[in-house]
């Protein structure tokens, strides 16, 4: 069998034909798609991408480099899903197509050494095991604290790395010491009367690089009357694996997370990163080959909710006054929090409740910022164009504070400020700004 025929059959096996057939090609997704808005090219639209996947399965075209390119260029922001009249689950098609391509490339030795190495380190190493992530962030802390960062910058060692990586290095947050991070108890009691019992999904990046934000989220939940449990056996959500076509890794992580949470007697499983939250909600599809696990996933996902929606629901705003010095605040939606977790309203309600500040909605706040996981590293040109447009809308609001609700968006907005912003601008996670307003 020719290699393209092999890939065609892999995609045919993997892709849900009913789902592709559900696309009416009405085009309602076009004005919501950042890559289509950017290029006005139908190969870069959700409708186009579904037609291309279906075209491969129908035998109209071969799965050549052009097909892979258009699938790689998708941000996966899923703004197309709420816009779709027919309710097509584009995310499922995209991840299955990417998985088929990844499996095929690996099996046929088409993956070059560089890509194999990166995937090995990132997916089998870092994100598959929390202790390795701990070690890696430990190195990052050492790098930042020991003077190595200053030295590296002085010696211009970063010049050896791709441009985009250099820019990202500059906006990484300062990692707190490990000793600070291991002190956290597994169970935390609510302040005052209990309003809900929650299990906190701590995430991998959020619990290392953005540890401070996790600590603040817990503080807010506690103030809102939540009894909190943070199961130690939990793992990375698997989103990065899933989005990159590494479904085997994603499935392993999903199972371990379900095991960690399912026995807990809680009302909610709380997330504070839109990307993780959305991926947890897709566990049932990820595990669909295994009915028993898929059922466990259904029960698991029924409890998953973002922390902002929970705060609103349990009456946080009635319990805790929020105040900050006078400033204009704008919000950048996390695509997955908005489009998958349907959590666009709560963050805005919380921000609007901060006394002394003014909330300004930016134009197209619901459009992706171009971060999209590791997209900004892999597709820097498109990502940078999208970011530049985004920062234009941010500047139009005159806001100094840009609030985000996902680590990727957070770093991307930092990068946006560095490249296109003003010196007084800052990017801050919703939990951090709320904690600041609580203490003020």
């Amino acid at each position, binding site marked *: 069998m020719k290699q393209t025929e092999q890939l065609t059959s892999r995609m045919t096996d993997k892709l849900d034909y*009913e789902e592709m*057939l*559900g696309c*009416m*090609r*009405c*085009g*309602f997704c*076009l*004005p919501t798609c950042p890559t289509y808005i950017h*290029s*006005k*090219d*139908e*190969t870069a*639209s959700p409708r*186009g991408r579904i*037609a*291309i996947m279906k*075209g491969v399965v129908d035998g*109209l*075209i*071969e799965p*050549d480099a*052009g*097909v892979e*390119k*258009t699938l790689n260029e998708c941000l996966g922001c899923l703004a197309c899903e709420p816009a779709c*009249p*027919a*309710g097509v689950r584009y995310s499922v098609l995209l991840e299955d197509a990417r998985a088929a391509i990844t499996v095929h490339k690996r099996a046929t030795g088409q993956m070059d050494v560089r890509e194999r190495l990166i995937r090995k380190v990132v997916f089998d190493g870092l994100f598959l095991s929390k202790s390795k992530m701990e070690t890696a962030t430990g190195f990052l802390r050492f790098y930042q604290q020991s003077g190595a960062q200053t030295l590296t910058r002085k010696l211009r060692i970063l010049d050896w790395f791709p441009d985009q990586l250099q820019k990202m290095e500059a906006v990484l947050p300062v990692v707190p010491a490990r000793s600070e991070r291991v002190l956290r108890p597994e169970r935390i009691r609510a302040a005052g009367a209990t309003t809900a019992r929650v299990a906190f999904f701590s995430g991998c990046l959020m619990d290392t690089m953005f540890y401070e934000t996790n600590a603040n989220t817990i503080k807010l939940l506690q103030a809102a009357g939540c009894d909190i449990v943070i199961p130690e056996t939990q793992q990375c959500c698997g989103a990065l694996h899933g989005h990159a076509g590494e479904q085997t890794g994603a499935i392993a992580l999903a199972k371990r997370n379900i095991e960690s949470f399912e026995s807990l007697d809680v009302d909610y499983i709380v997330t504070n990163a839109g990307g993780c939250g959305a991926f947890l909600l897709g566990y049932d599809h990820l595990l669909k080959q295994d009915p028993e696990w898929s059922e466990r996933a259904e029960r698991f996902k029924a409890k998953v909710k973002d922390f902002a929606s929970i705060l609103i629901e349990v009456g946080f705003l009635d319990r805790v006054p929020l105040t900050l010095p006078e400033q204009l605040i704008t919000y950048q939606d996390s695509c997955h929090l908005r489009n998958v977790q349907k959590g666009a309203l709560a963050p805005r309600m919380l921000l609007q409740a901060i006394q002394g500040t003014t909330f300004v909605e930016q134009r197209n706040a619901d459009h992706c910022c171009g971060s999209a996981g590791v997209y900004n590293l892999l597709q820097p040109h498109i990502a940078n164009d999208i970011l530049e447009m985004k920062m234009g809308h941010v500047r139009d609001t005159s806001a100094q504070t840009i609030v985000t609700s996902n680590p990727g968006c957070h770093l991307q907005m930092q990068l946006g400020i560095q490249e296109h912003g003003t010196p007084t601008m800052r990017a801050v996670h919703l939990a951090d700004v709320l904690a600041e307003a609580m203490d003020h």
Partner: protein
Amino acid sequence: MEWINHLQTELGDEIVFSDATTRLAYSFDATPNYQAMPDAVVAPRSTEDVQAIMRLCQTYRVPVIARGSATNLAGGTTPLAGGLVMDFRHMGKILEIDEKNLTVTVEPGCITARLAEAVEARGLFYPPDPSSMKISTIGGNISENSGGLRGLKYGVTADYVLALEAVLPSGDVLKTGGKLAKDVAGYDLTRLLVGSEGTLAVITEATLKLIPLPETKQTMIAHFSDLDGAARTVSRIIESRIIPATLEFMDKKTIEVVEAYANIGLPTDVGALLLLEQDGPSEVVRRDIEAMHAICLTEGATHVEVARDEVHAETLRYARRTALSALARLRPTTILEDATVPRSEIAEMVRRIEAIGRTYDIEIATFGHAGDGNLHPTVATDARDHEEMERVEAAFADIFAAALELGGTITGEHGVGAMKAPYLEWKLGAAGIDVMKGIKLAFDPHGIMNPQKMFAKAAKKRLVQGGGV
């Protein structure tokens, strides 16, 4: 192919695409079951580019399919004969908003909603509002003579096109009309190009009429226990010399499907639903809404609700706005038709559609623009089921025949394209088709402009009810 190389040399690689992925992405529009690969896709940057492309295509006899956002529902932009798809991603600018003459001049790739937003920011109004206006282009709207929800009061795209620039297959530029309220110099070529579905020339610039933006708008909804109550209400409103801005209709089946999908508390024992809107000076709007409210009640409405504010209005519009989404989720394939009748015949037409659905045992839900008699009988089906698709096609043939019998037409706003070409003769007769073919020949002697559209190889035989031919 030689012509593609030639095109690339003349215009540059960056706007000429012939890779399989691109060709696939331009092989369809929003019409179910129509797909064909073009040989190449070109994205001109200017009228001069379009001229060069047309000269070359004329020389090589290559089919040219001008394409906006491909949202059309009649196969109009599917490249059935292969050839070159022309895409207007680089020609989408708003060139001028002329506040002295109340006109706007745009390139064809301009998105309809963007135009509407830009003129509304200056207190002006471009009324045509096809449901796809957030996606559709002005070039596409002009080529299809698109309608919309405001058709009854404000007319359709054709009523707003004042002047056009178009490139003929020869590469020559044709300029029609002007920023003029009156212009009788010769045949009305502007009006001829509007709705010509890309079969005559490629539109490269359009000047459109604007009107002052209405000051206020008010929304209401009315439920009826039966279809006739709703139909009588529509007639009585018009008879009372009220022309509402919107007068939308949903039948029982549509209401059931919307409620099952959206759970918004619509009573499913209702026979029909009307959504009514009026715009204009506040005292006129208030007076008309009160009068329509009274008419609804007199004609037996079981529930009438007037919106308190814009948020409330949005919830009232929700049922109608959700109709397509709800219907689209029933089965894999959704076919949306647009048979149109004089508004006095709406109740009769809906009844005939229901009977046809029963005859062929298919699910048809009907909603649409009651004010202008433009209905959207919508079938939920599965394109893979050939036996059922045959029944669907037969049902639609009967629906077209019924519309014609009631003094209506086979298509109110979607266009003929490929899907309705076999039925065009039913509407126009042999003489009408001959005149149209003569016009086509005068513009496009070699038949390169959007071939296999509008004119069928053979007209469909029309079955008279009862059997005979």
